[in-house]
């Protein structure tokens, strides 16, 4: 058990180190996220009430798009340099490695999104309830994005072009987007958001248990 935990953290650390070393790959999706958010006020004009209504939705859509970009790199270099083969053939379960890689992806791509969203929310002076709903939905939602995205990234590994990945992933993200938007709308008008949060938490638990298994199987299939 200790050896398994040890390997888990070794791989999380490795992936974070690699993300940090490869700064362009790591920061590009985040810059893309910021730019998409900034484009909307320009497109909508400077009506503050309209912007306040739309900010949370814009942040969420931008988060989905940015995650598509960052997911492209999750297995790509490991596939190209033969690391995935070594993970599959190691004495430790592939599931362990896959879980570690997804966690590392969430730490390097998901958490910065939440932090940037927080700052954007403050800048656009969202109400406290809306901010709370935005943060909670992002906190529950971004791990789901990493988990579901990993399956698709594993399936499209070795196929050139990130476009296919986005086309496959975005429809799968719709349920998360719907529940998050409902929560934010309810919070804006001062209603309870418990139901939507429970739904998101439910999806998260489901993704947490099933997505790594699907990802491992997809990796094995792609390598055979």
């Amino acid at each position: 058990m200790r050896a398994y935990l040890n390997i888990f953290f070794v791989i999380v650390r490795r992936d974070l180190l690699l993300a940090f070393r490869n700064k362009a790959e790591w920061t590009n999706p985040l810059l893309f996220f910021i730019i998409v958010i900034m484009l909307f006020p320009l497109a909508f004009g400077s009506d503050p009430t309209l912007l306040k209504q739309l900010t949370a939705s814009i942040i969420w859509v931008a988060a989905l798009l940015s995650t598509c970009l960052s997911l492209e790199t999750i297995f790509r270099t490991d596939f190209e340099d033969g690391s995935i083969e070594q993970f599959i053939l190691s004495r430790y379960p592939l599931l362990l490695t896959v879980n570690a890689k997804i966690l590392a992806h969430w730490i390097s791509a998901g958490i910065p999104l939440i932090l940037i969203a927080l700052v954007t929310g403050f800048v656009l002076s969202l109400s406290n309830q809306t901010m709370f709903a935005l943060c909670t939905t992002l906190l529950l939602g971004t791990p789901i994005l990493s988990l579901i995205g990993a399956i698709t990234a594993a399936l499209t590994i070795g196929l050139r072009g990130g476009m296919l990945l986005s086309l496959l992933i975005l429809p799968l993200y719709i349920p998360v987007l719907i529940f998050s938007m409902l929560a934010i709308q309810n919070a804006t008008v001062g209603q309870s958001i418990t139901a939507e949060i429970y739904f998101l938490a439910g999806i998260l638990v489901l993704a947490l248990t099933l997505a790594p298994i699907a990802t491992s199987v997809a990796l094995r299939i792609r390598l055979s």
Partner: protein
Amino acid sequence: MSIFSVKNLECIRRDKVLFQGLDFMLEDGDLLQIDGINGSGKSTLLQLCVGLIRATTGTIFWNAENIIDCRYQFQSNISYIGHADGIKADLTVQENITLMHSLSGSPAAVDYPSILKLIGVAGTEKVFVKRLSAGQRRRIGLARLFMTPAKLWLLDEPFNTLDKYGKTIIEQLIVQHCATGGMVIFAAHQLLEMADYTLQHIHLGHH
């Protein structure tokens, strides 16, 4: 005593029969070379042997048990080095070796400087792998073999991109592993200078 055996193995890729009815068996101390022209299925055979791909027909056994049924037990007994070295360009040599060591599950501590010296890349601990030449990378990929407690080694073109000196090191390593009761299967089309060791041969293709 361990036995690795392959029974009636067949592989068809892109409607072409690569090999059919292949049988062989390895016991402790056995050394097997797979040779054949390019595209004759050497790498495919090795990938079948480790379970990365499934055969159309035929079974592979580790100690009389199908490797599909005892996957992790089998995998803790093998060390596979494929065409790709399985090392990260953005990590330093030392970080790569630490990583290999963790994944190998070997309980023994690893002595980096002496391993690096043995494979002829001494003093490169802090160098990023992307700064090294192809041959040096291959050597670092092969450093896995110094750390693994695995009994069966499967090496795909281990001598590729290696110079004469590197080739000798790996040959010696292979012979030494077999002499201490290990088993090695490797694919290569060069002749080897391991004349003093009995070598089994599998020839793929029609030449």
